[in-house]
């Protein structure tokens, strides 16, 4: 299909700037959402280090605990915490868009899909906390 490109060679083509994601709030929000994955990876690394320390014995585990109290690690974990919360909230809010569930001839409203997600989130968090805090 010949586009007008062949007819009008003088069309002006724009190029996106490398910093396009700073241009609009929805874009910035998007890039922050995607960057949350880096902090997810950080959490996994930390968890693996912890398991490793745990299997090596009490002395190593103490040392690891000490490392967790390092102000740099604390600061990183504070940032990570906000990012993983941001990930969770955006994830639950976007999930209904991907799921066109229909019932009674109508599409189930988004809150009825996101709602149970949030309830499950609270319940699961409580269960994990109980498991770790009970004794």
């Amino acid at each position, binding site marked *: 299909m010949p586009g007008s490109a062949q007819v009008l060679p003088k069309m002006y083509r724009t190029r*996106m700037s*490398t910093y396009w*994601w700073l241009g609009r709030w929805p874009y910035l929000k998007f*890039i922050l959402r*995607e*960057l*949350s*994955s*880096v902090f*997810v*990876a950080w*959490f*996994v690394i*930390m*968890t*693996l280090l*912890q*398991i*490793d320390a*745990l*299997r090596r014995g*009490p002395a190593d*585990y103490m040392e690891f*605990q000490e490392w*967790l*109290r390092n102000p740099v*690690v*604390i600061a990183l*974990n*504070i940032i*990570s*915490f906000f990012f*993983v*919360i941001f*990930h*969770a909230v955006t*994830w*639950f809010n976007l999930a209904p868009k991907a799921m066109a569930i229909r019932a009674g001839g109508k599409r189930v409203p988004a809150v009825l899909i996101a709602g149970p997600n949030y309830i*499950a*989130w609270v319940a*699961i*968090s409580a269960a*994990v*906390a109980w*498991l*770790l*805090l009970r*004794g």
Partner: protein
Amino acid sequence: MSKRSNEPFLWLLFSAGGVVAAMLIPIQLFLFGLAFPLGWLDGPGYQSLLELVRHPLTRLYLFALCTLSLFHFAHRFRYTLYDGLQIKHLNELINTFCYGGAILGTAVTAYLLWIIP
């Protein structure tokens, strides 16, 4: 169907990881990364934590949590590098780094969870 890509598989891992990360990481990060080190709450002692981690179900849980989260990361970070930095031409390198990292992480996780006494 054969000519279709493996994207559905990667997307499945990405999505599963997204759910797992959203549901489980905030509370664990809060407890292990902030509340326990800062002394807001009393964490489990060495013995009881080891007991917990030793349990087969916990191992399974940790394996799923870590590996799926890593594949979630790999997928998202791959696209962030493509789009954010406009370096799509480094495609192969990025894929190797992201998915390779996730596969390596899976192996490490499996190994660690296997050798816990």
